């Protein structure tokens, strides 16, 4: 039909840019991951260590702690955002006066830069001049202090992320819902199905492609969260909000341990990939079973 050369030609600019900006640095990191290289070591030069960095990593409590913390965070925020976003999108499907106003307001947090989100939430939650600790103490007698209590800090990062990214989910879900054909649902309601059954057996399966894409994008971004949390807590108290992105940042920037930092990055990269892949398979399976 049409020549493959044309197809490759259209694809070429994308492949070239991502090859240079993505693939080249990836190979560099891959190679450095097999070296012992810290700028401030006695020699300061990279020394080949084989798989030592990876061996060290498996038993590194800092890494494992950061990893499990990140997983807990990611699962919590992605699930909450999906559920909340879906409910809100449902509420936005029908017409009501003021709908576009509410929708615009709801999308506002998306527009705030992560670093500004972190600063804003810090301003709200820092004891002394934030409103949150002040009013929580005055109205409910709660001693809320994100610099002191690990649970408070962790919960605050989750709230912050949900605040920041739920609008993204709402928007995508809304787009998906508006594009769905109306007839099958109406028909099912006429046939005596209740709303829950319609949602469960009609809407959700039809929404699967949208749900998968949204989940993936949120998953990838939540796994590498850095800016907001770094500004809010710096990863503290102790290491209770030190997610993997912050851990890598510390290893590479603060410790200037390029070798080990590269190894950690590679593993996280690989882990994200596998996770997305598994999720993809799982979700498509569910989708198929429902059909």
């Amino acid at each position, binding site marked *: 039909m049409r020549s493959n050369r044309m197809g490759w030609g259209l*694809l070429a600019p994308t492949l070239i840019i991502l090859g240079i*900006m993505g693939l080249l640095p990836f190979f560099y990191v891959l190679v450095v991951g097999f070296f012992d290289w810290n700028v401030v070591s006695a020699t300061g030069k990279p020394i080949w260590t084989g798989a030592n960095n990876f061996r060290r990593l498996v038993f590194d409590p800092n890494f494992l702690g950061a990893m499990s913390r990140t997983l807990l965070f990611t699962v919590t925020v992605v699930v909450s955002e999906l559920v909340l976003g879906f409910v809100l999108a449902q509420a936005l499907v029908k017409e009501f006066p003021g709908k576009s106003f509410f929708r615009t307001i709801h999308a506002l947090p998306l527009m705030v*830069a992560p670093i500004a989100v972190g600063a804003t939430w810090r301003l709200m939650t820092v004891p002394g001049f934030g*409103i949150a600790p002040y009013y929580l103490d005055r109205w409910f007698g709660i001693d809320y202090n994100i610099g002191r209590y690990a649970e408070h800090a962790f919960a605050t990062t989750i709230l912050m992320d949900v*605040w920041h990214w739920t609008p993204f989910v709402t*928007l995508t879900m809304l787009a998906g819902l508006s594009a769905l054909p109306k007839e099958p649902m109406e028909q099912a309601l006429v046939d005596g199905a209740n709303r829950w059954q319609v949602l469960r057996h009609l809407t959700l399966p039809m929404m699967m492609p949208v749900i998968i894409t949204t989940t993936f994008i949120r998953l*990838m971004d939540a796994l590498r969260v850095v800016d907001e949390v770094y500004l809010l807590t710096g990863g503290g108290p102790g290491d209770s909000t030190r997610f993997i992105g912050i851990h890598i940042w510390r290893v590479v920037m603060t410790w200037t341990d390029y070798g080990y930092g590269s190894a950690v990055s590679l593993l996280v990269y690989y882990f994200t990939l596998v996770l997305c892949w598994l999720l993809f398979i799982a979700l498509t399976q569910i989708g198929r079973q429902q059909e």
Partner: protein
Amino acid sequence: MSRTKSRNILGWIGTYALWISMTLITLLPIYWLFVVSARTRVELFGRPTLLQTSFYIDNYLKPLSTPAFQRYLTNSLIVATSNALLVAVLAVLATYALSRWKLGGSDSIFFWLITNRMAPAAAFILPLYLLFTRAFRLGDVTLYDTRIGLILLYCLFNLPFAIWLMKGMMDGIPIELDEAAFVDGASTWTVLTRIIVPLAGPGIAVTVILSWVFAWNEYLFAASLTSVQARTITTGLAEFVTVTGTNWGEMAAVSFISLLPALIFLAFVQRYIVMGLTFGAVKE
């Protein structure tokens, strides 16, 4: 009959209660950002209050009148806008190719393109730095501290996103349309500009908007790979944090200013977001 009516009224109340409370929750942090931006430093450290009666305009005037901040704002606008447009063009070409041709390994290519968004950024700073300062070098001219460097680099996280977004959309456009055009003797270019782009319009708009937002908000790359000339507004925000006192007021003011273009952007094109973000759901 009256039962349905009362149920309807309850539904209305529920809807409005939900949305009014959502609006309050959403606006609270942004409102607080505004309050902080309106306060003097001395006021900030008094007892926290929700209400603000005075407005300390200096927090806005000072950064706005600094040439550096005007430059940061201009840089951010240029970088975000150019990047969003570039990403949209590339994504249209790429997804059109992936959708219409049976290229060898195109599934793997698609998956690899997307994985570019997964990399944890920090470790990639050093190779990117070397790339920017060493690899691309024409005499004294390098990509380091240039807007063009950032525009190209931001493709790294925006292109995967855009391609994913547009792939479903492309697949959703019936192939019969372009085949009919080809039969009439149209070139690939004509098909793209006359058929595909208009049909994918809403999707392209969404891609542009969200890419623009991601580029506008990026911090780490901009902080590491620019110096004076190409520094962006998010990087400028970090300048307020110093050993001798973080200037929260000015920082909040700049954050607030940097929110405005994005907000206007959003208000203008929000309908297209809804029209465009279908992710191939229509295809069913």
